[in-house]
């Protein structure tokens, strides 16, 4: 079976499992190594799908539900594929009353996805988050890791900017690395 590069459709014969297995073998003696194994797996696969968590649980003899519990406890792990750029709209009280809902709707419209989804080209994931601690700037959106104060009307420009950034990055890479 073939695997696509974007991380969807992970199958049991995916070559990345060999690397994951080797990593698990290397940390087998260390207590509490689950977190580092999950990190490694997320680096390899981009996110932690069922198949990957199941492999980890099985190899490390940890109940499935315990692995899944740890994955869902920490924000840094994703069980869904993520886009290259994460757009995370703050829905904390301050942002919400200052129009975060309209900003979210506008992003959804521009990108053609709902919160929690990824665009078909895997460029954007749209998310909502609870308060990011920047209430004085409300409403804020975390754009590719950077907290920004935005108005509804700024949304198309942000999307265009990120598209452009991606294209520039692609151009600056050697041809063989493009896929």
């Amino acid at each position, binding site marked *: 079976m073939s695997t696509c590069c974007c991380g969807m459709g992970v199958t049991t014969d995916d070559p990345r499992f060999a690397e994951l297995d080797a990593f698990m073998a290397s940390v087998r003696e260390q207590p509490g190594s689950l977190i580092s194994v999950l990190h490694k797996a997320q680096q390899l696969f981009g996110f932690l799908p069922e198949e990957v968590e199941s492999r980890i649980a099985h190899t490390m*003899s940890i109940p*499935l539900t315990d692995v899944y519990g740890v994955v869902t406890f920490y924000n840094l792990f994703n069980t869904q594929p993520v886009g290259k750029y994460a757009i995370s709209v703050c829905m904390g009280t301050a942002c919400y009353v200052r129009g975060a809902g309209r900003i979210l709707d506008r992003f959804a419209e521009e990108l053609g996805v709902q919160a929690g989804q990824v665009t078909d080209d895997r460029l954007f994931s749209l998310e909502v988050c609870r308060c990011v601690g920047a209430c004085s700037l409300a409403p804020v959106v975390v754009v590719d890791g950077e907290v920004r104060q935005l108005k509804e009307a700024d949304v198309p420009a942000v999307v265009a900017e990120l598209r452009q950034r991606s294209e520039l990055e692609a151009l600056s890479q050697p041809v063989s690395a493009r896929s």
Partner: protein
Amino acid sequence: MINLTIDRVPVSVEPGTTVLEAARQHGIRIPTLCYLKDINQIGACRMCLIEAKGYRGLQTACTLPCAEGMEVSTNTKDVRETRKLILELLLSDHNISCPTCVRQGNCELLRLSQEAGITDLPIKGELHQSAIDHSSPAISLDATKCVLCQRCVAVCREVQGVSAIGLVNRGFESRVAPFFQAQLNAAACANCGQCTLVCPTGALTERDDTAAVWEALHDPTKHVIVQTAPAIRVAVGETFGLPAGSISTGQMVTGLRRLGFDRVFDTTFTADLTIVEEASELEERLTHGGTLPLITSCSPGWVKYAEHFYPTMLPHLSTCKSPQQMFGALAKTYYAEKYGLDPKDIVSVSIMPCTAKKFEAGRPEMNASGYQDVDHVLTTREFGRMLRQAGVNLKKLPDSEFDSPLGLSTGAGVIFGTTGGVMEAALRTAAEWLTGNQLNGRVKFTEVRGEVRGIKEATVVVGGNVLRVAVANGLAAAARMLEKIQAGEVQYHFVEIMGCPGGCIGGGGQPIPPDGPEELDEVRQARIQSLYTIDEMSTIRRSHENPAVQALYREFLGEPLGEKSHHLLHTHYQVRHPAGVRTGR
């Protein structure tokens, strides 16, 4: 010994004892919610807060080890107010719906709230909007009533070795759910219901099937029959406040008639039949080199667990259906023919100590009669609720007898309800067959009796044959045994496995002890004792001597393992792949 004072009472305890246990040993009740002895001492709910001199802040008694000279106070102003606040917080995110909740009679959250003197709900918070998971035919999970104590998670992992459910997410989003938030019916759940016995609230319950049974009972065109498992007669009394282990066989039968059942039969009859078929199967496998050990198949929680986790062991399972399903198949064939009834008008109900039986009845292959063999399965708890709904007070009822012919049974059939009982019943019959005589009346095989949550092995010599047998109850214990069998460390001829601790009497559909799960072990022992008492008082104590079983073979089935038996009384198993599970773990 360690000496300390609790509420100024001097106490001395073994090193390692927690303050909670020390208090309990000395009659001081500290309230708890998440605590389950040995398997869930995680300090999660903070209900058990106490004050200890010299310690900063309030401490959780369930995790705090006693120390020499400690001065503990369990009832200070601070302690009481903080506990009350914790309960108020829990209630602020609780779907309070006591009048419609099945746990309203024995809910620990309700009881703790009353004990804390809560008269008002001052904290208004956001309520969980999670949907109720009704996907399973056996177990319902309603996260809106969950207090996140994780007792279910601990039992499912430690006692049952299944880990079908776990705690997912964090903070307000936390909830109990299967792997990848699958629905329960797609998860590795064995349907054993042990989680419903330890849940303090109405979050985890049996799927309620009482409405369908009432409908059948009120339909004049239907002939509604009922079978009761051996374990019901020693437990249903508890739903009316009788002490654990009270034997109420006769009153139970009368109660079922009062509910309107046309015939009241006994699963114990088909337990005897199971023994005759299974002992024949054992004899056959022993003499013809069949797959050994033969492993019992009467516990549907165990069977589903094996289908998930031990597919290579499936050829070891006896092909015998469980007594419930043998009964179902015969009710709509043998019984229908004998009494000139059209099987389509028969509604076949069973009262079981078991939630997994609900799943078993719905297996598509369980239609040997041409209809679904067993239409509805009620747990002991649902049966108790129906009696109350009908205004029947079990305690005041006169005794009456089961109907014939499917109501006649032996002591061997009755002990099917306890761990070791199927083994003992099978040995009584096999011993006689293998030796060709009545073994000088040997009926007691105490060597296989009474180990709750563990494994018991024995070597039985019968007529020159040495039989190595073993008994396991609780799925984690079963898994331990299976690993040894697979590794070739142990060799047995015959193995009994029951999915629940203590066997059926400890089933996930049994009454919940009024003072919570700490009483479970004691309650199980009392019920087990009562089954042995019934056995002792029975005139017939070997399954194959049951005259109704003998008549069944004469009039209808022909021979054990014969063609008709094969069609009606035997079944097959299938490998299942629940989400994420890889077999051979």
